[in-house]
């Protein structure tokens, strides 16, 4: 289950509009602050896929990063019950100079597995990623689809209960999209949660029964996907 109460994420900018940390903002004493998310309140039950929809800059990626633990809220509270796996970019956290095997070990350990468990899991990750011999090659030689397959295979090793996806499925080939859809559906059927953002609404509709419409970092509407999505599209057209 995911429960967010008045969650806010703040960004600090220097005078050149580069994002800086609060420490640097204090050090330099000038610049701007803005809220990437403000007063976000919602909950997602187990066994539900939720699509984040909204225009670019509405806070979809920021919210997914909060769910993945990449950002921590600067205001409010978020409760996440369950192990989270995330695919927030095509790179999927992979380091280009390391091989598939080395990345799988590194990300497995950083994701919370013991070294021994991560080592033991390498065979399964290799099989699930279907990379074959490429598993031993540096990731910089991989296509986007190969990276995503490896990223998902590593993420699944932690036996996630919550899967967070950010537009990655939109840049990939049909075979991987189909594979990802199957994995996401299986997770939802098993009582897990999928939260996905993107602009490919048919794809989102196939994964998600609910939609969270974000606008300027706030929730505009939250409800069944088939109700929220047409309203969002209507708002886009009328704008």
């Amino acid at each position: 289950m995911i429960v967010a109460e008045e969650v806010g994420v703040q960004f600090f900018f220097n005078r050149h509009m580069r994002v800086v940390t609060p420490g640097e903002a204090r050090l330099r004493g000038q610049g701007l602050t803005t809220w990437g998310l403000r007063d976000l309140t919602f909950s997602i039950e187990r066994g539900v896929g939720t699509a984040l929809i909204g225009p670019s800059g509405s806070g979809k990626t920021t919210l997914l990063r909060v769910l993945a633990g990449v950002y921590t809220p600067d205001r409010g509270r978020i409760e996440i019950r369950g192990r989270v796996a995330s695919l927030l970019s095509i790179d999927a956290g992979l380091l280009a100079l390391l091989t598939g095997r080395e990345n799988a070990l590194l990300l497995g350990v950083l994701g919370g597995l013991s070294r021994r468990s991560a080592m033991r899991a390498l065979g399964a990750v290799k099989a699930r990623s279907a990379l074959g011999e490429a598993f031993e090659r540096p990731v910089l030689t991989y296509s986007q689809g190969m990276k995503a397959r490896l990223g998902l295979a590593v993420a699944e090793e932690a036996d996630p209960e919550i899967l967070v996806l950010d537009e990655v499925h939109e840049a990939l080939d049909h075979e991987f999209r189909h594979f990802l859809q199957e994995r996401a559906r299986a997770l939802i059927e098993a009582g897990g949660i999928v939260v996905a953002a993107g602009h490919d609404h048919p794809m989102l509709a196939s994964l998600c029964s609910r939609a969270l419409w974000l606008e300027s970092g706030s929730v505009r509407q939250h409800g069944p996907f088939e109700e929220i999505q047409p309203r969002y599209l209507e708002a886009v057209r009328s704008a």
Partner: protein
Amino acid sequence: MNREAPSPGRATTAVGGEGAVPGLLRSLGGSIDVLRALTESDIRFRYGRGPFRFARWLLDPVALVGVYLILVTFVLDLPGEAPGLSLACAVIPFQLVMLTIANAMTTLELRRPILLNMTFRRMLLPISAALTESVAFSSSLLLIIAMMAIYGVAPTWNILWFPLVLLVNLLLAIAAAYAAILFGIWLRELRAFVVSFVRALFFLAPGLVPLAETSEDVRDLLRLNPLTGLFEAYRDVFMYGTRPASWELLFPLTAALILLAIFVPLYRSEQRHFAKVV
């Protein structure tokens, strides 16, 4: 999944039913695994893979300082006792601190894809930077041994103090790494200046000659530089075969503890925002 220490605004699921001691041991074991994984990946970047990996590890310090030591030992006719060994005893501990700082200042960029995709124990990044440089440093110890052989300096039992000296050296490097990561993001445009400043500290310590050969007027002042104690401790252990004086360990140790006291809390607060700025 492991989580960073929750901020006041973030609640995470607690793992129930586990006692404090097993939980602590599990956390310590997890930290060791994370440190090992981060350090190994750094070393892969540095030395690559394949048969030349070992040769690169061995030759890197020679390329970095070995040539200079050869110059001092065989070409220049410098006064003093074993000038090449004396210089090695300063340059090599300095390299551990210096390279850790350089590594730390770029470590966030190196790990950008991970920082943007998942949460992990980011508090361990500075320690991993120091451990990576310790691996490189271990091969440069061979240069000290080579210098001892060249000058005919036999080791004494006091060489057993070396692990303690190394520990202080490593602690100073780790403390500097916490500061370096923060300066690396706060003062991106001044990174080269920070490196030059640290390099200047080498010359503001008895790096080129032992403390005993410096002017008495500035000797007490030089002692305030934490590197001075380190250099002298290395010389005591490897060159003079004596036990390091307590000030030689206490001064750099105090400097490390002060740096840690200042920068660890700052780092803890700032690391929550690293993914926003990489």
